[in-house]
């Protein structure tokens, strides 16, 4: 009698057989993603298929967290993991622990290796980052002259800050020649001091397309640039070595243009604000000066110039009165002195002596003082107070 089993017993049995098989416990499988679903739990469910077959896959949240890209339907990948049975459904599936885009697996490794090495060399150190000019005069753009990236950047620069000059150094941004051209252009811009800011980058693309910006030649050129460099590669989630080395990482080329220059709308607002500030300050100042003048005006003379005038007039009158009084006094004094002197002079006059009864004898116009000068019969003139007498000398008595 053959043994009868339950479904779950068989599923459990198969699960054990699968898991005991070393071959199935660590596989890398190449395929294309389809029916991709991300559940709210954070687990990823998808199928891996090739031209003829398909296989169910699950990637748990913890492993999916390590992904550097977002899996998409149609994406060719290499999935790593173990194959086991999901007992509930009796279906086997790949329990996926790693997922890398097919064909770039080794690039990916190279990226991580270069990143680790340059980090160790200090190329990503924050203190190496140079400040960007606030108002760049000349921006060197190192990218493809045909790309959308350039058009996007020029459109934004034109809108935001048309004061700057753009110097385009056209290079190839993908393919084997690209790294040397990009690095060469960065060094050339430095050697000729072409600009005060460099933007280098390109639009989005596959990881291979962006690969030039993961090249160490570009990384060293950026690191050695004396002109600040903005790295602008791909779309928002794309990260390249250039982004780590550059002085500033922009999420996209458009974003690089936005970060590179100020916005004229904001500049105009700022200018208007300065103008308003100047006006306010000036008005405040004038108000303050007016208060000062007002305080001064409380002074009587300034408050009423007429008062000042009459005050001065009164002062003048007073001075005038004092002056005339003084001159009168002076004149009186002089007059009195004259009278006194005249009287004194009068008293000393010989005529005054004669008026007291004396007379004066003169001979031939000379006053006689001695009998020696007189002889008998001399004719003498006697001067009296009221006239003269002519006499003849009869006798001289000595």
């Amino acid at each position: 009698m053959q043994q009868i089993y339950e479904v779950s017993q068989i599923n459990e049995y198969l699960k054990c057989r699968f898991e005991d098989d070393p071959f199935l416990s660590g596989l890398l499988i190449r395929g294309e993603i389809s029916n991709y679903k991300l559940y709210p739990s954070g687990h990823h469910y998808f199928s891996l298929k090739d031209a003829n077959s398909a296989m169910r896959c699950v990637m748990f949240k913890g492993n999916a967290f390590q992904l550097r890209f977002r899996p998409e339907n149609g994406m060719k990948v290499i999935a790593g993991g173990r194959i086991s049975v999901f007992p509930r459904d009796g279906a086997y599936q790949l329990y996926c622990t790693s997922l890398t885009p097919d064909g770039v697996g080794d690039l990916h490794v190279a990226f991580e290796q270069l990143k680790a090495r340059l980090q160790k060399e200090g190329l990503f150190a924050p203190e190496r980052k140079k400040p960007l000019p606030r108002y760049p005069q000349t921006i060197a753009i190192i990218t493809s002259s045909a790309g959308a990236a350039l058009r996007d950047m020029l459109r934004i620069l034109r809108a935001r800050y048309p004061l700057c000059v753009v110097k385009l150094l056209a290079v190839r941004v993908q393919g084997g020649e690209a790294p040397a051209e990009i690095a060469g252009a960065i060094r050339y811009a430095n050697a000729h001091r072409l600009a005060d800011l460099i933007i280098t980058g390109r639009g989005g693309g596959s990881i291979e397309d962006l690969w030039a910006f993961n090249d160490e030649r570009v990384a060293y050129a950026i690191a050695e640039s004396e002109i600040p460099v903005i790295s602008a590669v791909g779309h928002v989630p794309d990260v390249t070595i250039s982004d780590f080395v550059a002085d500033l990482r922009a999420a996209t080329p458009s974003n690089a243009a936005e970060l590179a220059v100020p916005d004229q709308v904001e500049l105009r607002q700022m200018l208007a604000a300065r103008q308003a500030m100047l006006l306010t300050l000036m008005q405040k100042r004038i108000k303050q000066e007016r208060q000062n003048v007002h305080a001064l005006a409380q002074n009587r003379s300034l408050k009423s110039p007429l008062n000042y005038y009459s005050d001065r007039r009164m002062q003048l009158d007073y001075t005038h009165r004092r002056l005339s009084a003084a001159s009168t006094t002076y004149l009186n004094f002089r007059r009195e002195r004259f009278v006194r002197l005249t009287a004194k002079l009068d008293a000393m006059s010989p005529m005054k002596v004669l008026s007291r009864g004396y007379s004066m004898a003169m001979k031939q116009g000379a006053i006689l003082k001695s009998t020696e000068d007189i002889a008998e019969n001399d004719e003498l003139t006697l001067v009296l107070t009221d006239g003269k007498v002519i006499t003849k000398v009869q006798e001289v008595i000595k």
Partner: protein
Amino acid sequence: MSASFEQSLTRLDEIVRRMERGDVPLEEALKLFEEGTTLVAACNKMLDDAELKVVQLTKGADGSPQETEFTDE
């Protein structure tokens, strides 16, 4: 052109700072106000008149940069 724009802004800030201190004589404050107003007008005009200049650089025979006008529109 851009240099004078930046210089103008720098000077403008300096003027605002000096006027904020309020210790400049009235006569000078008036002059600063006038200069600041002129600078604001000049900066606005620079922005009004500006047109983004784009040139393509190529390495000349002697290695020196050669400029050619680049039109992207």
